[in-house]
């Protein structure tokens, strides 16, 4: 029988050790080893060696092969003072890892030397609970949830499409939602604009939406922009580093303005539009796919393009299209799956059918083509009302 001290002393004879100073030098070296932190989660959360991976001592044997399949990869193991990691180093040697050393003195000595420490960002227990269904999905997980919390999405319009899109993005924990809308809540909005409510009649839509969304999720900050998007204010509004734009506007001039600005700023746009029973939804990813002008080079004459205010819309339709927009925005932020870039989905609520057509990048596109002829904002109202010139 051996005491703990005897066992530890024996263990240290059987493994290789380096000092924290040597370990720090190897952090900067070309054959940079992988630091493996075997401490408990609460110790890890208070700080760790930059670039280290975390496997608690208890899960080491079962997890290490998944994380480090290459058994000749140089590894430096550490814990708080170098004892738990001594046992861990011994075990990894027995498992066939050939280049394992223990960092003597551990993280306590590392910090005492004043070396860099990374404090990991962790979800609070409230967030763990709130986002538990996301954390269970491998494609999201804790890292993905942090990305969502860091993300900034700009919604054009807090109406039919903006309502469901903003509600789902807020619920998902997208940390910052900018909302551009100049209107106030009107009784005729409430048949479909579910981010607002009867007690908000007459209130600016951006403030009504802010109340609803921040009430739904306190992690979300809503930036209300009570303006109509124009050539004059678009640069100021886009200067705020948005990751994704969700376009739920209600007129052609704004659609073309959002398109041109997004191409020039390199911001992907999740585009949705609705009329009566029909919806269209796609993603315009600057550089990687077509833009709105590739899809529709010219707007139709006004008399052929009635708005929802003139032609009506089934109340639930924006719920379907706006929810697809939210889903696409989340995928873009998470960088997961296949986006709708290059594909236009057409939904018909009357027949309950979903069609898909291919949208190709137009090499002659005046904005995103090979030789662009439009390189600055134009008068979009005039562009959308002038008779077409055929060339």
């Amino acid at each position: 029988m051996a005491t703990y001290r005897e066992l530890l002393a024996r263990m240290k004879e059987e493994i290789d050790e380096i000092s924290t100073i040597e370990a720090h030098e190897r952090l900067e070296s070309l054959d940079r080893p992988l630091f493996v932190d075997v401490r408990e989660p609460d110790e890890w959360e208070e700080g760790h060696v930059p670039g280290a991976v975390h496997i608690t001592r208890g899960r080491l044997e079962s997890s290490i092969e998944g994380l480090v399949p290459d058994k000749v990869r140089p590894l430096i193991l550490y814990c708080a003072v170098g004892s738990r990691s001594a046992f861990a180093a011994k075990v990894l040697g027995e498992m066939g890892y050939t280049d394992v050393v223990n960092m003597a003195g551990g993280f306590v000595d590392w910090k005492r030397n004043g070396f860099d420490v990374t404090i990991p960002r962790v979800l609070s227990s409230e967030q763990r609970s709130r986002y538990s269904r996301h954390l269970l999905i491998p494609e999201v997980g804790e890292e993905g949830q942090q990305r969502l919390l860091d993300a900034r999405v700009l919604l054009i319009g807090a109406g039919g499409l903006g309502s469901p899109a903003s509600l789902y993005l807020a619920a998902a924990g997208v940390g910052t939602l900018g909302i551009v809308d100049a209107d106030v809540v009107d009784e005729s909005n409430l048949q479909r604009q579910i981010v607002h409510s009867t007690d908000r009649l007459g209130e600016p839509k951006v403030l009504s939406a802010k109340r609803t969304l921040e009430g739904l999720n306190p992690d979300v900050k809503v930036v209300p922009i009570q303006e109509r998007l124009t050539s004059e204010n678009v640069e100021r509004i886009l200067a705020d580093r948005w990751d994704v734009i969700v376009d739920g506007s209600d007129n052609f001039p704004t659609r073309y303005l959002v398109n041109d600005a997004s191409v020039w700023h390199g911001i992907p746009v999740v585009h949705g539009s609705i009329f009566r029973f029909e919806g269209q939804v796609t993603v315009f990813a600057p550089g990687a796919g077509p833009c709105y002008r590739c899809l529709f080079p010219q707007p139709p004459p006004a008399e052929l393009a009635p708005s929802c205010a003139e032609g009506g819309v089934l109340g639930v339709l924006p719920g379907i299209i706006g929810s697809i927009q939210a889903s696409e925005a989340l995928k873009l932020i998470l960088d997961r799956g296949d986006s709708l870039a290059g594909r236009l989905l057409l939904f018909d609520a009357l027949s309950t059918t979903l069609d898909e057509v291919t949208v190709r990048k137009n090499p002659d596109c005046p904005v995103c083509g090979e030789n662009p002829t439009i390189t600055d904002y134009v008068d979009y109202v005039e562009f959308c009302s002038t008779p077409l010139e055929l060339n």
Partner: protein
Amino acid sequence: MGDIIDDLVERYPALGGQLLEDGELASYVNVYVSGEDIRTRDGLDTPVRGGDHLILLPAMAGGV
């Protein structure tokens, strides 16, 4: 495809003003033959076969 549109317009004359400009397909209408925009193929000369799925798609701007 051109023959099909001519036939449609003959049967529904009001469609003519929405689909055509000077006898050509209007630039704000997209026509897809089995998911492909005919402008990326042979325009109104694009052949249509039995079983092809045709979509006449107008641009829509509504969102609120």
